[in-house]
C-alpha cells in the first residue's frame, strides 16, 4: 500500500496498516506537526488534508488512506523554507501563541481558502469552528486568513 505524503510516495509496511494514522505520521515518518490532543476527533489539533479536504486523523487508521494524497503542515512551506503566504500571515498577524492548534488551524484554513478565495470574516469564522484554540480567542487567526485570501484569488 502507498500513501502520498507532502508530494512524496511512501510505501507503507504491512505491519503499519492497522496503526492509527496520526501515530504513523508522528512516529514512523517523524511528521509531528499533527498533534493528538483529544484522541476522539473533538478538537482538530490533528487535522491534515486528504485530497485537499480536512481530516481528523486521531480516529482513523493508516489503511483508510490507501493511495490518498496527504498534506501535513510540514508540506506547506516551499522546499527552500519560504513560508506559504497563509503561514506568513499567521506569523505576521499574531495568530500564534502556544502553537499547539496552529498546524491543524493552518491546514483547515488552507483547504477553505482553496475553495473560497473571497471569504467574508463570518465565513472564515464558520470555516474554522471545528478547530479549537484556547489561547487566541480566534480573532488574529481570522485576521490572518483574511490577509492571506488575496493570494488564493490570483492562483489560477
Amino acid at each position, binding site marked *: 500500500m502507498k500513501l502520498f505524503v507532502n508530494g512524496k510516495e511512501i510505501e507503507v509496511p504491512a505491519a503499519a496498516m492497522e496503526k492509527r494514522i496520526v501515530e504513523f505520521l508522528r512516529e514512523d515518518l517523524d511528521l509531528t*506537526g499533527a498533534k493528538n490532543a483529544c484522541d476522539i476527533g473533538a478538537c482538530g489539533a490533528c487535522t491534515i488534508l486528504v485530497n485537499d479536504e480536512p481530516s481528523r486523523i486521531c480516529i482513523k487508521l493508516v489503511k483508510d488512506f490507501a493511495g490518498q494524497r496527504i498534506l501535513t503542515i510540514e508540506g506547506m512551506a516551499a522546499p527552500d523554507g519560504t513560508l506559504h503566504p497563509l503561514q506568513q500571515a499567521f506569523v505576521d498577524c499574531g495568530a500564534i501563541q502556544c*502553537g499547539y492548534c496552529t498546524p491543524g488551524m493552518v491546514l483547515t484554513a488552507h483547504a477553505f481558502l482553496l475553495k473560497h478565495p473571497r471569504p467574508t470574516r463570518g465565513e472564515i469564522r464558520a470555516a474554522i469552528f471545528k478547530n479549537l484554540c484556547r489561547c487566541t480567542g480566534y480573532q488574529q487567526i481570522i485576521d490572518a486568513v483574511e490577509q492571506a485570501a488575496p493570494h488564493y484569488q490570483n492562483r489560477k
Partner: protein
Amino acid sequence: MSKPEAKCWRNDAHAKVTGRAKFTDDLKFVNVLHAAPAYSGLVHARILSIDTGAAEKVPGVVRVLTAKDVPGVNRFGQIIRDMRIFADDKIRYDGDVVAMVIAETREIAIQAALLVRTNAEPLPAVLDPEAAMLPEAPLVHENHGSNIVNTHVVRRGDVAEGFKQADFILEEKFQTQTIEHAYMETEAAICVPRSTDGVIEVYGSMQHPFSTRRFVAACLGVTLAEIEVIGTPMGGGFGGKDDTAAIVCARTALAAKLLGRPVKLVYRREWSMRESYKRHPYRVHYKMGVTNAGRITAVQCRIVADGGAYCSVTPWVTWRSTVQCCGPYVVEHVQCDTFGVYTNNVVAGAMRGFGSPQMNFVIEQMVEVAAQRAGLSGIEFRRRNLVRQGSVTITGQKLDGHTVAMEQVLNAVLKEIDYETKLKRCAHGRGETDELYGIGLAMSYRGVSLGAEGVDFCAAIINAQADGSILLETGIHENGQGSDSAMSLICAAELGVDLNRIRYRRASTSNIPDSGTTVASRGTIMGGGAVTLAARELKAKIAAAFCKQLGCAADEVRFKDDFIWGRADGARIAFGDAMRQMWQLQQFPFTFATFRAPRVSWDEHTGQGDAYFTWVYGCQAVELTVNKKTGKVKLLNAVAAHDVGRAVNPEMVRGQIYGGMAMSAGYALHEEVKATAGKMTTLNLNTYRIPRSTDVPKMKVILVENPDPVSPTGAKSIGEPANELLAPAIANAIFHATGRRHCSLPIRLGALPEPTACAEGCQ
C-alpha cells in the same frame, strides 16, 4: 523567526507555523519506556492494599510503581504538603493516582493500568463545601483537624455603622462553577537519566520548572543539582500546569531513575481532565449598604471556596479574592470572611484570574443592582465609588505610586462601543423580534504579581559574544504567551541593538537561579525588569571600556541603532566591533541581574496592608442578543480597554486580551466540569465545551499605557486581567436584554417567560 518589522514579532512563530516546534510528546529518545497512571475508581476511601499483580504479569510491562517505591518524600505541596505522588493512606478524590505502570509501549501501559486493583474501605464522601465546614462532617485530612484549609479576613471600619449610614441594603447569594483550563496540550513528561553523571533530565509541559525540580528532587530523595528541568515548548497553561504537571514529572523521573532508561508519560485527555486541578467553585453571600445618593457605605461578605481534595494554592487564590472583594470601589466599612475548604471533589488550584473571576461576577452585578435601586445608571454609580489617584483601598493601601487609570479605561470603553446610546436600545425582556438585544460592561482593578502571597524576585543573564551576537536568559518560562519574545524585545530596546543579534537561550534550571513560577501575570514585569537591569549593567561595563576612545565620560555614552556613541561630535563604535574589542581587553560583556519586587505588607488578623506593589485597571463591554424562544445567547461585539503600563509587543498583548475574553465567555455561558457523586463525567473536549470560533464575538482592544514607575520597563500585566471581566459583562448584558439577573454560573437560559400583564402595567 518573524521579521522584526512585522506588526507582531515572536522568536518561535516560524517553528510553530511549520510544525517544527517540538513539544514534549514530539521529542524522541532511544530505548524509551512508556508510563500510564492507574486510578482507583473510588472517591473517598481508606486504602487497605493496592494489587498490582495482574498488571505486572502483562507481557511488555516492566514495572508497576506505587507509594512504596518512592525513595524520597511522597507528600508535597507549595503551602501544605498534603498532595501525594501516589495515594498512600486514603483515596480523597476521583483523580487520585494509586500506581503507575511502565511498559515497552504506551498501549501496553494503558491496558495494564486498568488491571491495578485498589482494596479499600469506602468512607462517606464530603461533596458540599458548606456541609464540609460543619463539625460533624467526615474529615478529608484527619491530621488537619478540620475541613477548613484556610481563612482570610478583611476588617475595615465598622460594618454595623456602615449599614446604619445606608439608605438601603442589598443582599444576594452567588454561586460559580468548577471549570477546566483545557490547555490544548495535556500534561506530559520525558525523563532521561544522564549516563555521565546520573543527573535526571526532565523535559515536560509545565509552567514552573523550578518548583517541578523541587518536587522531583524531593520525591527521588536527591539534591536540586541532580535534577535538570529543561524548558520545552508548551501548549498552553493558564495557571493549570503547576502542581499536577509537577507530579507527572516526578512520577516519570522516579521511573527513569529506578529503571535507568528514558521514560515518557503523555497524559490522555481523560486523565488530564480527571486528575488536574481546576478553578475553584465559589459560594458568595454578599451584603451591600448604599445611600440614595449612590455611595457604597458598607460591604459584608462571606466567601466559601471549594478547594477539593488537596490544599494546592487555595490559601493564595482565596487571599486575592479577599483583598479584591469590593472590586475597584472605595468602601469605608468592610467585613469579609473567606474560607477555603477541603472536600472530596476534584482539586482546585491556580487558574488564570486566580480568585478574581468569581468575585467580579458578584461585584459587577451588585453595583448595577445598587445603581438601579438608587435611580442611577450603572456607569454613574461606578463613577461615584471607583478608585482614583490617591484613593485608599479596602485593605488600607493608598494608590499613589502609579497612575490610577480606572476611570480612564472605563471612559475608553464607553466611547469606543457607544455604550450610553446602545444602553437605551436594550430590550429588557420585550422585543418585536425573538432576538432581545442587550449591552453590559464590567471593570476591575487587580494587584500585580504575587503580592503578599510570597517571595517575588527574578534573574536575567545577558551574555554578549565576541562576534556581537547576544545570548539572553531569564527565570521566566515560555508558556505560549510569548515571554521569550517579550524579553528579547526588551533587551534589544534597552541595549539599542538590532533584535536579530539576540537568541533567547533554552531555559534550564541548571543555568539560572530559581526565579519562581511563571504565574500571576508576573512574567513581563518581573522578567522584563531583570532584563532591563542586566542590560543597564552591561551598558555601564561597555561605557567604562570605551568612554576614553569615544572622547567622553562614561555616563555620556549612548546606545542606539546598533552603535555605541560618544558626545554629539559623532564618535561611535559599531556594537559588534565593541564586543570583539572587549574580548581583546579580557573583559566579558556578561551580566547577571536580579529584579526584586518592591515590598508589600499584610496583617492576617485585620486583613490590612499594602497588598500589592502596583495595580492594573481594565474594563470590558459586550453586546449580545438572547433568543426569547430558545434562550440562546449570541455574542455580537466586545470591547476591552486595559492599562498595561507599557505594551512591549502590542499585537501579543492584544492576543492575550482576545484570548482572555474568549475564555471568560466560556466561563459565562458554556463551561462546567460536572461530576456525579464525586466522579467526573466531563472527561474530554466533546462534553467539556470550550468556546469555538463561532461562539466568540468580534473584539476590539484599546491599549492604555501609563508606564509604571516601579517597573524598570514601565510594563505591568495582562494575562489575568484580560480573563476576569467578560463573564460579569455578559451577565449584565443579559440582564439588559431580558430583565433577569443570574446569580450562578454558567448562565443557562431556557425559553423566556412572556412578560406578565403586571409587568407591562407597572411599566
